[in-house]
């Protein structure tokens, strides 16, 4: 199946461009598909990727290091916020879950939060306490 560059839409059978980048436009994001995507679909996907995994860019090493530091601090802040939560898994809607890795890893407690109710799996709390 071909790889389509999400930036310019060009199709490549050879997967080496996925690693090297698109020779036409330099795009780094590809979509593996039988049916090439239209411009609107490509733009939507690209925006989503950029939002979720914006590459670290900078003119010099100092800027890049600053950006790494900023992102690390942001990730720590997010993790701290989760620490205050009692649930290990939140069901936002069916198919969309937020996992509180800290709670799961530290205590192994399985507490699921959905629509204002906490569901507590008791054996997970008693685990390893024999």
């Amino acid at each position, binding site marked *: 199946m071909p790889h389509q560059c999400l930036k310019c839409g060009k199709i490549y059978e050879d997967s080496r461009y996925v690693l090297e980048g698109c020779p036409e436009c330099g795009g780094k994001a590809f979509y593996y598909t039988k049916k090439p995507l239209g411009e609107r679909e490509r733009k939507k996907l690209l925006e989503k990727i950029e939002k979720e995994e914006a590459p670290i860019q900078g003119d010099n090493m100092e800027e890049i290091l600053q950006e790494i530091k900023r992102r690390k601090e942001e990730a720590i802040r997010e993790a701290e916020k989760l620490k205050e939560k009692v649930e290990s898994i939140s069901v936002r809607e069916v198919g969309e879950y937020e996992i509180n890795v800290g709670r799961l890893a530290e205590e192994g407690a399985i507490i699921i939060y959905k629509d*204002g*109710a906490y*569901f*507590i799996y008791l054996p997970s709390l*008693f685990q390893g306490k024999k």
Partner: protein
Amino acid sequence: MGIFDKLSGWLLSIFGKRHVAIGIYGPPNAGKTTLANRIAMDWAGDVVGESSEVPHETRKIQKKDRIVIKQGKASLTIDLVDTPGIATKIDYHDFLEYGLDEEEAKKRAKEATEGVIEAIKWLDNLDGVILLMDSTKNPFTQVNITILGNLEARELPFIIAANKIDLNGSTPATLKSAFPKHEVVPISALNGVNMDLLYEAMVRKFGKKRK
């Protein structure tokens, strides 16, 4: 082992005088705080915490130290631990009918969930447990069975107290036949019925030195 240890061990075996930490466990609204208050009032003239009809009133561990229970020549000093109710589902909607506003109800649900975790963690610090069940309710719940199974696995001494025997619809006999291997004491913590039986069982069961 020194002479003093030998002597005190011998005295313990005769009079069973010990200092132990005892926790009261059970589902929400079984009457744990009422029982803790009853024990504390009977032997120390004090209360442990506030009880209410709204489930999950106790959301943090409450403790009353050095309560001395006497039974004839034997006595038992206990640190009494009242624990939050163990539940498998805590829904804030359930609190709304008791007049709590949404924010309060959500806070209560979160604290009650934290309370379940804390209560179970506390088992590590205890020498014995009173597992309190509501004798007007079906005893075969996930909560009762899970706690009981864990206490057995830990080999932690425990007594099942079948509470609310003064209420209509109470069937302590069902509870007794549900757990034939274990000691079941029918009581009413609120009205003080059969408390002497419970104290006798506590001194006998928790006064023994654990292996």
